[in-house]
């Protein structure tokens, strides 16, 4: 067993990227993820890679586009307002089928918002964000160890499907410290296709490579989009990840991801003392969303209600309702603007709904 080290979430992001073989990083400072770039600016040159502080998030994501198109393992990291600024570029990257990793350490919004943890970019991450019919694979770690694992796996998923992957973390995960093993726990063996499409300069030994997303003829653009949609279907079939904890036989199920999934465990413990058995469904992939796992809860006779608990005004709850499809009542409890719901207030809400006490 490898030695454990105490590390801050944001620094673990940087170390995991280097571990995954990422050698190009482009980013622009924004709290609460500054330590990502600071750490990488020191580590990347040691690893023989390139760190560049871009003039803006706009430039950063377009540098990522260039480097990804050139065939590199590349990433950027930012927080909510910066990710908003990147959306045009993310749409281009998805349209051109370029693999890359984008980290969003979410903070409270809208607008300039605040710098405290939030999950209010769920819609932006999972429903598009930029323009057009495209999808990001969205991975939501709830511990720093899992963040390391998902970053390594995220790069592989990106390469396998030629698709941008987003790590959706929050200011809490970025700023906290935890003991971790600095190596990926499990690495699913994936067949990673050769990047024979990359712009490397063409000496005539292969057809020349052009990376673009302009199709002026609607029939052609539709064909192109159908290829993307077909890929998204494959991702939905193959890549759903979630964790379920004590759902069988439980009275209620909490659905929560990231930092909120940690809080959900405390809620479950406290609820047990009150005689309420609480199961937890923790989506790890937010897109593709584990609709089937949610739907299965709808068929469990003992479950009286499903709760989405979020650091937002209610975003993931819409996907839960889609999955439950009217078979159970779905409730939402959340705080917004950088406020973190406490286990007690969540428990109070559950008790109110169940009319216990």
């Amino acid at each position, binding site marked *: 067993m490898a030695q454990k080290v105490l590390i801050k979430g944001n620094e673990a992001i940087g170390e995991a990227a280097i571990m995954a073989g990422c050698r*190009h990083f*482009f980013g622009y400072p924004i709290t609460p993820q500054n330590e990502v770039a600071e750490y990488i600016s020191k580590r990347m040159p040691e690893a023989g890679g*390139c760190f*560049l502080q*871009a*003039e*803006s998030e*706009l*430039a*950063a994501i*377009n*540098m*990522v*586009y*260039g*480097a*990804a*198109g*050139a*065939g*590199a393992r*590349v990433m950027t990291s930012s927080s909510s307002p910066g990710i908003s600024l990147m959306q*045009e*570029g993310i749409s*281009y990257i998805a349209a*051109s089928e370029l693999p890359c990793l984008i980290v969003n350490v979410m903070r409270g919004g809208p607008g300039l918002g605040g710098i405290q943890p939030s999950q209010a970019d769920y819609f932006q991450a999972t429903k598009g964000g930029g323009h057009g019919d495209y999808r990001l694979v969205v991975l939501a770690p709830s511990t720093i160890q899992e963040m390391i694992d998902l970053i390594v796996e995220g790069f592989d998923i990106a390469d396998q499907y030629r698709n941008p992957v987003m790590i959706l973390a929050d200011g809490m995960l970025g700023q906290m410290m935890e003991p971790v093993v600095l190596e990926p726990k499990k690495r699913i063996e994936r067949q990673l296709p050769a990047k024979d499409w990359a*712009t*490397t*300069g*063409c*000496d*005539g030994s292969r057809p*020349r*490579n*052009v*990376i*673009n*997303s*302009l199709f002026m003829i609607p029939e052609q653009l539709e064909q192109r989009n159908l290829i993307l949609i077909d890929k998204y279907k494959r991702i939905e079939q193959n890549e759903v990840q979630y964790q379920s904890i004590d759902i069988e036989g439980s009275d209620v199920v909490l659905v929560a991801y990231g930092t909120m999934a940690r809080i959900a465990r405390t809620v479950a413990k406290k609820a047990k003392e009150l005689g309420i058995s609480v199961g937890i469904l923790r989506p790890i992939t937010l897109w593709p969303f584990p609709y089937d796992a949610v739907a299965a809860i709808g068929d469990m006779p003992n479950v009286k209600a499903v709760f989405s608990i979020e650091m937002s005004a209610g975003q993931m709850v819409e996907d839960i309702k889609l999955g439950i499809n009217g078979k159970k009542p779905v409730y939402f409890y959340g705080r917004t603007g950088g406020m973190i719901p406490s286990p007690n207030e969540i428990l109070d809400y559950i008790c109110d709904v169940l009319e216990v006490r």
Partner: protein
Amino acid sequence: MSIIFERPRSLTDKPFHYCPGCTHGLVHRLVAEVIDELDIQANTIGVEPVGCAVSAHDYFDIDMQEAAHGRAPAVATGIKRVWPDKVVFTYQGDGDLASIGMAEIVHAAARGERITTIFINNAIFGMTGGQMAPTSLLGQVTTTSPHGRDAGSAGYPIRVSELLATLQGAAYVARVSVHDVKNIARAKRSIKKAFTTQIEDKGFSIVEVLSTCPINWGMTPADSLKWLQDNMIPYYPLGELKVDGEGVINR
């Protein structure tokens, strides 16, 4: 029988889609000739803009990436940082480079990014139908300055080359024109020098090419060349603003 004129190797045989008399095609040819003469076709990667040259990959017979509007210097930076030994260039219009993409070009130049930019200044947004560009001249009638560009409201045309030449990272900055044969030959020499500056790892290089847009200027091709000469050159003086400039940072 000997061949005295032929298509450069670095151009495909696809006919240009540009309007009659447009100088985009001519500048493509100059760039392709330079790539051929420097024998760098196999290691050159181009970045095309959003603008009339958005499909330049149909014409340049090299690997290319299409950038979002204005972001070509950032995209080229990404490519160059992956392939420092390849030749990377951007081809951008004045709306692309001097309006929406001003930040990216300034910072690429300031970093002394080893890329070359071919900057087509036709004083107008060609592709979208002739709107005012940051480079449109005072008094110039466009579809969004129907009474002529008015400094009081729209400010003054930007002299991009002068602006970039102030930056230490910019090693080669030149403004050329393609309104007659003599100037076309000069333009080609400057483009070659810009590519050579990159190959010699001296820093950022840019050639601003004064160009025409007969369609949106509402003139014949011949009148356009004359309008360029009479109106653009006095405001945008030709010449090399910086040669082998500072900005050589060991990377």
